[in-house]
């Protein structure tokens, strides 16, 4: 392990254990900000709606290429994970958070099992067939790619999948 990797691992643990550090970091950074808050009303209750999951926790199928961890500006691409993919075929590539708990139980960052249980219990109308997954660390020129290309593409795919509402989970 080189010094850069070590420094990153220390930072990951500090940000995990000291929430105020994240807020301090966030105050000094620029984000895609806006006064306009988008709003699409629910067409029908959740118990009659198809719910999709989207995550920025770096989840992907082992068979798919991992997210790019070498580019300091991150990776604006996305991966498609079938919601019923066997757990052994799914992994996480993301070095900017501690995913040791999520490695043991994917539901810590992506509640696929909980969502399917809620559907079986009648709380949710349906579960969308695919999860769309990003690696949340995106900066520099990749922000534009995410905003103008990747995110709208995923939005179109969610509609095509029949999603009627989406729950997003971060890292």
């Amino acid at each position, binding site marked *: 392990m080189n010094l850069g990797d070590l420094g990153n691992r220390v930072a990951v643990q500090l940000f995990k254990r000291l929430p105020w550090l994240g807020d301090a970091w966030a105050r000094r950074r620029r984000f895609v900000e*806006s006064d306009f*808050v988008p709003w699409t009303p629910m067409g029908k209750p959740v118990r009659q709606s198809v719910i*999709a999951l*989207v995550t920025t926790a770096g989840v992907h199928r082992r068979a798919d290429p991992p997210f790019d961890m070498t580019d300091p500006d991150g990776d604006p691409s996305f991966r498609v994970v079938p919601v019923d993919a066997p757990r052994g075929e799914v992994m996480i590539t993301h070095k900017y958070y501690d995913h040791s*708990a999520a490695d043991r139980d994917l539901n810590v960052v992506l*509640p696929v099992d909980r969502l399917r249980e809620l559907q079986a219990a009648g709380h949710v109308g349906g579960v969308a067939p695919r999860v769309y997954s990003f690696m949340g660390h995106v900066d520099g020129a990749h922000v534009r790619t995410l905003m103008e290309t990747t995110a*709208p593409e995923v939005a179109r795919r969610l*509609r095509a999948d029949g999603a009627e509402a989406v729950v*997003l989970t*971060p890292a």
Partner: protein
Amino acid sequence: MQRAIEAAGVPTIGITLQKEITRRVRPPRALYLRYPFGHPMGEAFATAQQRTILMDALGALDTLRTPGAIVEPGYRWKRHRFA
């Protein structure tokens, strides 16, 4: 991300562990938990906890009417007892 999905006509709720960022990015609906990074649904194998958080998020989809609202269930990390 939430903006793009809403723009396509699909309502969204985002779980967030970062209130400062959420205040600035202003997603349509958010559920804030004061949990450590990497644990938006809680602890590993804590089924009741994960189910409750997911139900909270889905419940907010049904009930929230105010764009930009942030729901705060206030669960204390590893202290709250989930039934």
